[in-house]
């Protein structure tokens, strides 16, 4: 394509001659007799080169030319002028002009100058194109970095030795700035690579792999993550690194567990509920007839029966609630003796009913503990009721007793020791007793009580130790911190 040239000169004769010459050189030539006129033309014309006689004596003309240059900096100016104003022109335009030619214009000089200008223009265009490319590239990279950072997954890039070479923001937030560390160390606190590592698999076959893992964050939190891996290749197609994306699905899994166990529980409970309702019916019947016949003994029995049933139903509902609502512990400071009293108040009636002696010893001084009173109480009641059941089902001994001994362990722990001389447990029962729905009590147990009690104690940062011997009795030692455990951040 031909280049567009605009010639600015008052001397129309000369310009015509130049035009003819340049057209023959395949330029697209346009003429203007003044800089003012040229100014009006440049927008539509958009010339690449302007060939101008600045007409030095006319300052307006010079100003207009300079205006054109500043408006269209890309246009290359070639100034031609009489030798006596040559220096003046150079002074005026300095480096704003691409070249200066003396009048009369020699064709060879003009050709060379135009050729140089042509080259220059091509070069500039190339530079422009490249710099645009670089800019786009920069933008894209920034975009990728941003995506990389903002993706709601943990992203790591790892080399063949599972060393982490890059991580995104979320990863840094939950796992720290651990560039150069081993993936298995950061995610799983292991000293050796994991078996069935998806990253290793991707290094091997170049394909995407998916696993579900349990990882531990720097704050000690356990997360269920779903991981995907993808190979990163160099130009030769060799896999140099592998990117691993891990999505945190802990909540989904928790919800799922919750729903499954709830569904399961409701199923296994409906039978128990029917039995309890029948028992409650019985209590109500006793109450009705007791009142009608004015039989205080029967009315008393009725109250006892209803009380027992309501307790059983209450417990079951609490069990259900525990499952339907994953609650956070609500810590309160409470005086130890007061807490113990509220626990024994619940258990005492059923112990007395079965002729079991319930002995309680507490530390002499007043002690405060920080627990979730409702849940802690219900856990302790569960342990004690378990002891009551163990005693009441035991027919081999004449007298039964339960000892609840509370003592301080070190400066920061309080210990609840429950000893009974009931049935005792064999090894299997001992090992399984904290699992869901394990019940050795036939239709009386839901299999939930100790499971939940265990859960509550653990939530309080406590531990449970069990010793038991068949026919002799059991000893539970429940130890919890006196104050709310502070999470290590």
């Amino acid at each position: 394509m031909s280049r567009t040239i605009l010639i600015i000169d008052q001397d129309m004769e000369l310009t015509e001659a130049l035009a003819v010459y340049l057209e023959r050189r395949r330029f697209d030539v346009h003429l203007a007799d003044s800089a003012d006129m040229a100014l009006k033309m440049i927008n539509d014309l958009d010339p690449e080169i302007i060939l101008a006689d600045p007409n030095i004596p006319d300052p307006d003309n010079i100003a207009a030319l300079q205006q054109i240059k500043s408006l269209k900096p890309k246009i290359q100016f070639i100034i031609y002028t009489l030798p006596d104003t040559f220096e003046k022109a150079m002074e005026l335009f300095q480096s704003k002009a691409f070249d200066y030619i003396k009048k009369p214009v020699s064709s060879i000089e003009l050709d060379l100058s135009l050729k140089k200008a042509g080259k220059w223009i091509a070069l500039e265009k190339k530079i422009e194109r490249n710099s645009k490319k670089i800019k786009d590239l920069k933008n894209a990279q920034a975009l990728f970095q941003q995506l990389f950072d903002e993706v709601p997954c943990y992203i790591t890039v790892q080399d063949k030795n599972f060393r982490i070479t890059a991580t995104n923001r979320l990863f840094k937030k939950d796992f720290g700035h651990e560039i150069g560390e081993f993936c298995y160390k950061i995610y799983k606190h292991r000293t050796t690579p994991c078996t069935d590592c998806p990253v290793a698999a991707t290094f091997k076959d170049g394909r995407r792999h998916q696993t579900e893992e349990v990882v531990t964050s720097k704050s000690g939190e356990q997360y269920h993550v779903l991981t995907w891996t993808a190979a990163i290749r160099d130009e030769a197609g060799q896999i140099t690194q592998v990117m691993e994306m891990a999505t945190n699905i802990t909540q989904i899994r928790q919800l799922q567990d919750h729903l499954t166990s709830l569904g399961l529980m409701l199923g296994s409970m409906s039978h128990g509920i029917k039995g309890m309702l029948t028992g409650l019916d019985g209590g109500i019947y006793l109450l009705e007839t007791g009142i009608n016949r004015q039989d205080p003994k029967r009315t008393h029995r009725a109250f006892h029966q209803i009380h027992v049933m309501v307790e059983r139903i209450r417990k079951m509902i609490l069990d259900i609630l525990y499952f339907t609502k994953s609650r956070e512990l609500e810590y309160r400071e409470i005086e130890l003796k007061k807490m113990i009293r509220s626990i024994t108040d619940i258990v005492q009636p059923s112990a007395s009913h079965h002729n079991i002696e319930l002995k309680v010893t507490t530390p002499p001084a007043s002690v405060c503990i920080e627990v979730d009173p409702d849940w802690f109480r219900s856990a302790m009641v569960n342990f004690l009721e378990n002891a009551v059941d163990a005693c009441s089902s035991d027919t081999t001994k004449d007298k039964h007793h339960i000892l609840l001994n509370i003592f301080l362990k070190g400066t920061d722990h309080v210990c609840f020791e429950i000893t009974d001389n009931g049935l005792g447990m064999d090894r299997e029962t001992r090992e399984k007793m904290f699992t869901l729905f394990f019940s050795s009590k036939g239709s009386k147990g839901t299999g939930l009580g100790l499971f939940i009690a265990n859960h509550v104690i653990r939530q309080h940062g406590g531990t449970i130790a069990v010793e038991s011997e068949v026919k002799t009795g059991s000893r539970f030692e429940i130890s919890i911190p006196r104050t709310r455990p502070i999470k290590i951040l």
Partner: protein
Amino acid sequence: MFKKILFATSATEACDHAARVAFDMAQRYNAHIDVFHVLGIPSRGYSQVVVDVKTGDEVALDDNYRDLVKEEIRTYYDHQIAKTKNWSIDVAIGLPHREILRIARLMKPDMIVMGGSTGASGSYAHKKIVTGSTFQRVAKAAHCPVLVINRPAGSFWGGFSNVVFGTDFSNAADTAFEFAFKLVKELNCDFHIFHALDITGFQMNNLHTQDYIEDQIQKAGRQLRFKYISKMENFKDYAMEVWEGIPFVEIVKYAREKHADLIVMAYNTKKTDEKDASIGSVAEQVILRANCPVISINRSVGK
């Protein structure tokens, strides 16, 4: 007798009573129980999307999902598994009856245990398609005895002690007899041998005289002695009976009368070359109606 039990389940309440019997058997007879669940039917060709049998949803299939289903089954039967020593869980994708038969060929269990038709579980229409005909297809083709519990009422027994063997004198019935006899000997059961004389064919115009019917009954009685009793050597705890009527009705009635906790019978497909092998549909009807578990044995068992 039962060392390996394959319990094929939809892991829904429709199979709960079958589960009760399957796990009870495993515990009682110290057997290994394999809980087998066909988790979905491929929806299109060989695509990775399957229809979950439990929910009816389409799900993408991968190992993760497989494990999830296994875990779910584990949880579903948690309290039963807790009491069972020897168990495993397997899942597969495909048409349930085909997959059950496939794993049965691999595992060679002593018995397949399954629930019957799902009946009126309403909203799970697809389940009916799956389970309903599944037990029929499995019973028809399995190479081992198939125990089906269709009615919840049939699941409250616990162990076998009183067995009814219903025969149509077919070849499969001979195999069923061998199995039933071995079972009653090993588990020390009472044994009731029974034949129902089919009088439905007489109904139309030529109703036979009672003399004729009773002749047939006596003949069948002789056949029972000849075919079975003669092979029982010194075994004494048996009774035998021939009743006339509609065969499946008579067998269900007889089992109820005897408080049977197990019925063993042949599962003959219709239109076999044996002319008396009409019990195929009879077995299906008995399975659907009986008050106790039913073990059916087809022609291919033991071959």
